């Protein structure tokens, strides 16, 4: 476990093994280090939850898009240029006043890469994977989210190739915001289901 926190330059444990594998596979012509740099660059910068946030904001603003998104999320996202590995069977699920959705992968770490990027450490943790199905309300409480008893919690355990994105509820007081401004409000946690979206700054006072 402590290997995780070793400094890279020490090249002990996993760091040395990874370096050895990369060298050997490069020598055998199976990988190209430049391609590896490219993959890392893509997932560290290009792909991330900002893509999902754009999808959510568009679904809030454009009723026809919203219908297409819930009918076929793969095609709807492709319209916006959003596609890629782990997104071939994307499904959008909608939070309403009656249903709150939560996404997990109890068996490994399945996650909708093209819209949310790579999963955060907490999503892959044993604690989340084990309890999100048996105690979803308790898990959400740890994130500060309390779901009222009259609302159904629906947990999607990603056991096959379907990858789920939660379309959270649009916050009150956001009526005047543009699609781009709305996208700024949408958090990664809210698209997994462990958070709601807070009312925009300034709107809270008005709605109170």
């Amino acid at each position: 476990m402590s290997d995780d926190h070793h400094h890279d330059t020490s090249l002990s444990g996993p760091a040395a093994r990874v370096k050895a594998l990369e060298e050997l596979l490069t020598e055998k012509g199976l990988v190209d280090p430049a391609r590896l740099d490219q993959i890392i660059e893509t997932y560290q910068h290009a792909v991330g939850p900002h893509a999902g946030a754009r999808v959510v904001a568009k679904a809030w603003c454009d009723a026809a898009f919203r219908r297409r998104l819930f009918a076929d999320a793969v095609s709807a996202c492709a319209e916006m240029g959003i596609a890629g590995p782990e997104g071939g069977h994307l499904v959008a699920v909608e939070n309403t006043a009656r249903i709150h959705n939560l996404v997990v992968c109890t068996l490994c770490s399945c996650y909708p890469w093209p819209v949310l990027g790579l999963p955060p450490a907490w999503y892959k943790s044993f604690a989340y994977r084990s309890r999100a199905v048996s105690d979803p309300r308790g898990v959400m409480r740890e994130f500060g989210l309390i779901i009222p008893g009259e609302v159904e919690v629906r947990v999607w355990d990603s056991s096959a190739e379907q990858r789920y994105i939660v379309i959270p509820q649009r916050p009150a007081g956001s009526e005047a915001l543009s699609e781009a401004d709305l996208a700024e409000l949408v958090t990664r946690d809210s698209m997994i289901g462990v958070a709601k979206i807070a009312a925009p700054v300034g709107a809270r006072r008005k709605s109170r």
Partner: protein
Amino acid sequence: MNGIHDLGGMDGFGPVPRGEEAYVAFHSAWEARVFALTNAALTRAGANVDEFRHAIERIAPARYLASGYYQRWLDALETLLIERGILTRSEIGLRAGSEGVAAIAAAPVAAARPRAKHPAAKFSIGARVCARNLNPAGHTRLPRYARGRIGVIERNRGVHVFPDTNAHQAGPARQHVYSVAFRARELFGAPAHARDRIVLDLWEDYLELAAIKPVRRSTARKPKRKLR
């Protein structure tokens, strides 16, 4: 296999980690490297994603729990490269120094034999189905917590490659996948909220039709008469 990876419903792992570190995908440069390496090398090595998942599941339970996420990827990648004969253990060991090379994951066993061959879907929307009490020695995507439990077919997700065979290079055995909704109480008993549901995407082979209605009345009365 009934492995340590099948975590759904377990207790004892404590609260979900929060804070800045918990929102990071890679904690160090080698983690990013092993992610990229796996993505680039797996297909070139002739391995599919189901085999990769299964290689992670084959890591010994104590090691699985003690390893970080990308350490498990590294173990699985090394395992597959060695099993495929692309690299040898000593080759990696020599290059990596004394600390190199994980204990290789346990050898794979035989694949499950597919039942479903239907081009047409066997179950319709709204059907009550029971997740079969399957315990294959090889790879499966039917979590333990759902086995023997009754749910309702909500969606047909189309025809997909069957991981239980594909992870063992035993063919795609394509079949329908369904989103099956289980009541939380059916799976986890009274502590679960009465309204809540858990939805799993399950292959046709994992499912069988459940009795339409429980026939409690007739079966409960008959033995009484016999006792007299």
